[in-house]
């Protein structure tokens, strides 16, 4: 990206100046190097989002921002409920895609002794990859109950424990979901996908806490150096993908009649006050609940496998974050508390210390922010920073972002070679597809550390711990 078109506000904050139809400025959080490596499309998309009616504050991009669909991936934008809109593209196809982290309390050496057997058992129990199916089949009524209840529904059905719910955004169940706003096709697509991991960059990893940066916060989160955690990255599966597909189309067609002039059809949105906007909101919330239920079921399967090897382990949930959402939140704007609809597309909610929505035991430290890396590098646990709400509505980055295309990755690396090289480094990969492994090669991703450092220094979130993989189950 050309830096000369931007105004540097600080070392890690760059303004896209308000011009033309932009209603607010754009703000990109990144260091000079990350910014220079970003596609010019990011600046264009940040500016386009700033043109949408009812946008409040600024159109933000996180340090891992890249070219998305209408909104940049890594984009954050908040809208006024009366004047603003809701955008299917601003949430994305994989509604409520997110990461959760489970604590095992086990030392690395304990897991290393059974590493290969544990990898094989997890791979056998966690349905992963294209065409994989779960064991759960829901009736129409049960599907609707799941879409209303989210992880709470899953716990009520025996997939997990009640105490898990306090460690999930919104207590594991977003209110006002509307299963009737979800198409029959979306529900059919989900029919045999409950409790499945998916493919692409989704994974289940067994990781070691390799480094701690903030001892007090790490202790509060239950993270101890050298201990093992399990991270799960996946979303709302076919149901969410189809909701995105259905509403992106409907919003694009309806926009002119709603009086919305879109700078780009990908920005398809509907007024929050319109019947279409309300229907999408209800469907999207059902999609969030589906993702939360899905990660809850995967948690249960993971616990069952760990119990086979370590009968005393309970794998409590550290936290569960979603990074593709639109959430109704209260924020202070110019000294006034306002109700806003905050889109985070490839961005993680990162409420700072003292926020009333955090579990009491985390309130002094800020929200756990879980950042996925690539399968050969590191993942991170951050904590929402004090004052983060005034920077980007309490948001931080979500991952590394790709450095090269899937095609280029498969041209450069064979899946077999990657599996063997990682095994030599003590990282066991289990995947149904070697091509899938090649496309997700560690070298195909940017350096997540640079992204996390920028988020830390920009005051979006504080570094707490770095996690390195021992086992990676890939779809």
């Amino acid at each position, binding site marked *: 990206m050309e830096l000369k078109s931007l105004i540097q506000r600080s070392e890690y904050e760059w303004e896209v100046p308000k011009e033309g139809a932009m209603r607010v400025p754009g703000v990109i959080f990144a260091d000079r190097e990350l910014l220079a490596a970003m596609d010019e499309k990011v600046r264009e998309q940040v500016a386009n989002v700033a043109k949408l009616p009812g946008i409040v504050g600024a159109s933000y991009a996180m340090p891992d921002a890249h070219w998305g669909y209408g909104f940049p991936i890594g984009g954050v934008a908040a809208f006024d409920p009366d004047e603003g809109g809701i955008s299917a593209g601003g949430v994305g196809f994989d509604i409520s895609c997110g990461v959760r982290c489970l604590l095992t309390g086990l030392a690395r050496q304990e897991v290393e002794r059974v590493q290969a057997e544990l990898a094989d058992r997890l791979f056998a129990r966690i349905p992963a990859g*294209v*065409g994989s199916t779960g064991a759960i089949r829901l009736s129409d009524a049960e599907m609707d109950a799941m879409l209303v209840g989210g992880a709470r529904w899953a716990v009520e059905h025996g997939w997990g424990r009640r105490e898990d719910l306090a460690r999930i955004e919104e207590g594991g169940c977003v209110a006002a979901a509307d299963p009737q706003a979800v198409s029959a*096709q979306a529900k059919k*697509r989900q029919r045999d996908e409950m409790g499945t991991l998916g*493919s692409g960059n989704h994974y289940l990893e067994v990781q070691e806490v390799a480094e701690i940066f903030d001892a007090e916060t790490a202790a509060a989160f239950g993270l101890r150096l050298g201990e093992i955690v399990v991270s799960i990255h996946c979303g709302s599966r076919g149901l969410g993908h189809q909701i995105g597909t259905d509403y992106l189309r409907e919003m694009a067609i309806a926009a002119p009649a709603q009086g919305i002039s879109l700078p780009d*059809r990908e920005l398809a949105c509907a007024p929050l006050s319109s019947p279409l906007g309300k229907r999408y909101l209800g469907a999207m919330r059902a999609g969030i609940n589906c993702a939360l239920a899905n990660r809850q079921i995967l948690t249960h399967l993971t616990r069952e496998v760990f119990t086979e090897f370590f009968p005393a382990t309970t794998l409590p949930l550290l936290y569960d974050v979603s990074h593709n959402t639109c959430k109704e939140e209260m924020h202070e704007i110019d000294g006034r508390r306002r109700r806003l609809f905050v889109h985070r597309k490839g961005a993680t909610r990162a409420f700072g210390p003292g926020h009333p929505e955090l579990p009491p035991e985390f309130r002094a430290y800020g929200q756990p922010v879980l950042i996925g890396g690539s399968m050969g590098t590191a993942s991170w646990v951050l904590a929402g920073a004090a004052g983060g709400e005034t920077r980007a509505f309490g948001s931080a980055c979500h991952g590394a972002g790709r450095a090269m*295309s899937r095609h280029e990755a*498969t041209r450069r690396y064979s899946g077999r070679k990657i599996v063997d090289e990682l095994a030599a480094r003590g990282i066991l990969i289990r995947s149904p597809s070697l*091509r*899938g492994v090649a496309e997700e090669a560690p070298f195909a991703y940017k350096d997540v550390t640079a992204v996390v450092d920028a988020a830390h220094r920009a005051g979006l979130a504080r570094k707490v711990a770095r996690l390195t993989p021992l086992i990676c189950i890939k779809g």
Partner: protein
Amino acid sequence: MRWETFAHDADVGVRGFGATLGEAFAAAATALTAVITDPHRVTPRESVAISCAAPDYELLLVDWLNALIYEMATRHMLFSHFEVEIADLQLMAQAFGEPIDVERHQPAAEIKGASFCALEVSRHGDEWLAQCVVDV
């Protein structure tokens, strides 16, 4: 008729060329399969009928690819041969393929949806082009 995939930051684009609009759409569908697996590995032994209609050709391409994504997801199938007819913004097609065989097809990634990103349906001389980015 020819097809290719093209790079996009996080995802991948599919592009088809053809002497007719139907051929370009069929070629784009082959590129869609290539995102998942080598189309030559997919035996076209079962057919599925697909029809859709849209207000313009670009939305029709998105609808066509999304219909295939839906059929792949719900039938657990992959497709490698397509017969597409388009008239008056209505599409009628047969997609030929077989159930997914993970060992043989080594499917790399499922496709979540076809997007409006880099979406284009246009005619260049005697050739039609149909393309968009798909989310994987």
